[in-house]
C-alpha cells in the first residue's frame, strides 16, 4: 500500500535525542480516483458516439425490354428539386389538370404523404417513383430513400427513375413562381 514505515526501525534513541514528530505519508487518493473515472466516462462516451453506418443500395439492371408496368392508381411520383424542395403527383401527369396534380412540399411533410398513400393503396399496386433533378443534392436523394425505410415501404415498391423534360420544366416553373434559389 502507499505507506512507508516511518517509525525508524523501532530501536530506542539515546537520551537527549528529541523524538521527531511522526508524519504520515498517506496521500488522499480520492481526487485522483475521481479524475480517473471522469476521464474513463469521457472516453467511453466520445468513442461510441460517432459511428458511421452503411446503407444498402440495390440498383436495378437497365433492361429496356423488362420495363415494369405500374398501375396509375398506385403510383406516386416524388420529384426532388433545388433548395431541399420536394414535388409530387399521383398517377400520370395529365396536361389538362397539371396545376391540380403537381404539388410542392418539403421533407418534413413528405413522410405523412408517403404513409397516407401507403395506407390508401393495396400493397400490390403501390409504387413510389423517385426522380431527382440535377439541381438537387446527394443528401436529398439519400434522405428520400431513408424516408422510404422510415415509412417501412417494402423494397421493390420504390424506384429511382430519370427525370423527364416535362417534369424538369414543371419544377423550373414552380421554382420560379416560388422564387427558390
Amino acid at each position, binding site marked *: 500500500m502507499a505507506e512507508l514505515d516511518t517509525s525508524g526501525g523501532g530501536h530506542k534513541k539515546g537520551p537527549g535525542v528529541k523524538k521527531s514528530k511522526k508524519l504520515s505519508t498517506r496521500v488522499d487518493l480520492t481526487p485522483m480516483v475521481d479524475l480517473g473515472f471522469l476521464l474513463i466516462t469521457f472516453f467511453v462516451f466520445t468513442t461510441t458516439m460517432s459511428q458511421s453506418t452503411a446503407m444498402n443500395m440495390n440498383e436495378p439492371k437497365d433492361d429496356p425490354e423488362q420495363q415494369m408496368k405500374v398501375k396509375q392508381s398506385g403510383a406516386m411520383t416524388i420529384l426532388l428539386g433545388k433548395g431541399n424542395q420536394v414535388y409530387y403527383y399521383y398517377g400520370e401527369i395529365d396536361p389538362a389538370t397539371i396545376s391540380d396534380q403537381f404539388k410542392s412540399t418539403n421533407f418534413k411533410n413528405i413522410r405523412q404523404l408517403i404513409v397516407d398513400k401507403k395506407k390508401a393503396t393495396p400493397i400490390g399496386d403501390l409504387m413510389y417513383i423517385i426522380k*431527382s433533378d440535377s439541381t438537387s443534392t446527394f443528401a436529398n436523394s439519400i434522405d428520400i430513400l431513408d424516408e422510404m425505410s422510415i415509412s417501412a415501404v417494402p423494397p421493390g415498391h420504390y424506384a429511382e427513375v430519370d427525370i423527364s423534360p416535362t417534369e424538369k420544366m414543371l419544377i423550373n416553373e414552380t421554382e420560379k413562381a416560388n422564387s427558390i434559389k
Partner: protein
Amino acid sequence: MPKVKIPRKSTTVDMTAMCDVAFLLLTFFILATKQKPPEVLAVTPPSSISSKAAPDKSILITFTQEGKVFLMLGDDTKKGDIIDNINSSKALGLSPQELAKLKKTEFIGLPFNKLKSALNLSQEIPPAKMDGIPVDSTNNELADWLRSVTNVYAGGDQKELEKILLVKGDSKALYPVFKRIKESFKKNDIFKFRIVTNGEDVPIGSEVYNEAKAEK
C-alpha cells in the same frame, strides 16, 4: 462494572486499489480505441436510420462537394493486384518504382494521363489540388478502375465485394455526380453497394418505429 471499550475505527478507506483500477481502465480505453484516420477530404455524409456499421477494410469512393471523385483501395493485399491490373489493361506504362509508389499512396484522385507525371514529383499533390477521377459519360475512368477491381475479385468473391464497396459523398454535392457514380457501377454489372451515412435514430411514431415496437 468495567466499561466495554469499542475501538474506534477509522472511516478512511484505502483508495489505492480503486485508483489503480480507474487508471488501468483509462489506459485500456485510450489504447484500445482506434483513432479515426485523419480526414484528408472534408466530406460530411448525409444521415440515415441504417444501423449497420460501415466495414473497415473497404473500397471507398469518395466525392466532395465540388464533385471531385476519389478512390481508396483500402489496406488489403488486393490493392497491389488492382493497381497492376489497371496498369496493364489501360497501358499506363508505369515503371516498377512508380507502381510501388502508387501502391503506397492512400487514395487515387487523378486522371490516368496525369498519374505518371504526378508520381515522379518529389512532393505529393495535396488532395485539394487533385482533379479527381473523371466520371463523365464520355470519359468514365472510374468505371475502368471498378473493372480492375471486379477483375481482381472475380471468382467467388462477388458477395464479398458487394460488402466492401462503399460510396461516401458530401451532403451538398449535386445529384448528377452520384448518378454518374451509379452508372460506373452499372457498367461493371455491380448492382449492390453501400453508402456511408451518419447514424440517426428512428423517428418516434414512424412506421418502422411502430413495427419494431410491435415485435418486442
